[in-house]
């Protein structure tokens, strides 16, 4: 039991040379400057990512055309020391509005000096994405998934070699 609970958690920590206020601000107000661009859930890449600064606020991306896609919601809001989100995206990057099937991401900010901040991220309740995981298995088995991507990758080299 304890083992299953332990395994369903991801912990990350990083130290940044910035004030706690700046670290928090970059995290929640400038997410599009650092969030991996290929991890978007809309059909188009995101132009901006927003966090509404309150408990119950939305966390969402918006593309250049103004289309919005929800990622989750703010469960706890305590700037600049912490923020907690519900995470509704399974491994398939599809949004599931059901809060009972969402995992949780808690981020704690601890000041370690005038220009040093420790950021600790804890992603819990990952097992709730079990359904998404099943889809991930199916995706991995489908020719359009990773195998397909690798095949396309290989073709690039083949076409270059053929020139």
């Amino acid at each position, binding site marked *: *039991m304890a*083992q*299953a*609970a332990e*395994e*369903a*958690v*991801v912990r*990350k920590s*990083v*130290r*940044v*040379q*910035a004030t706690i206020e*700046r*670290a928090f601000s*970059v*995290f929640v*107000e*400038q997410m599009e*400057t*650092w*969030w*991996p661009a290929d*991890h978007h859930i809309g059909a188009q890449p995101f132009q*901006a990512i*927003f966090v*509404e600064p309150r408990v119950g606020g*939305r966390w*969402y991306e*918006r593309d250049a055309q103004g289309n919005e896609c929800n990622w989750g919601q703010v469960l706890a809001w305590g700037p600049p020391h912490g923020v907690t989100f519900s995470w509704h995206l399974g*491994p398939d990057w599809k949004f599931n509005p059901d809060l*009972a*099937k969402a*995992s949780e991401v808690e981020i704690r900010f601890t000041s370690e000096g005038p220009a040093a*901040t420790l*950021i600790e*991220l804890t*992603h819990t309740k*990952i*097992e*709730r*994405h*079990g*359904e998404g*995981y*099943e889809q*991930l*298995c199916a995706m991995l088995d489908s020719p359009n998934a990773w195998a397909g991507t690798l095949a396309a990758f290989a073709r690039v080299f083949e076409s270059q070699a053929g020139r």
Partner: protein
Amino acid sequence: MAIFQKLAKGPLAVHELAGTLPVSRPAVSQHLRVLKDAGLVTDIKDGTRRLYQLDPKGLALLRAHFDKVWDKAMSAFQASAEQPVIGEKHGTSRGRSRRP
């Protein structure tokens, strides 16, 4: 996917799962078979009972997925947070509307 969540708390027998869910025992068994085929659930023998539990390998893969996502995101965040504050000069802070 209630079965998956129930099993996240520990191993259970089919009748224990069925007793807490609004579905029939055969339906629970069928769903367990699907989960087992997907590599998410394994069964173990506990005396004469057969218990179902989450396959640690399946959960580990799910965990590995998020681990990778956050590794990438957090190192990019670190780089972004340590950038000199030049947003205003380039108009990326005030110039672009942050209003949803």
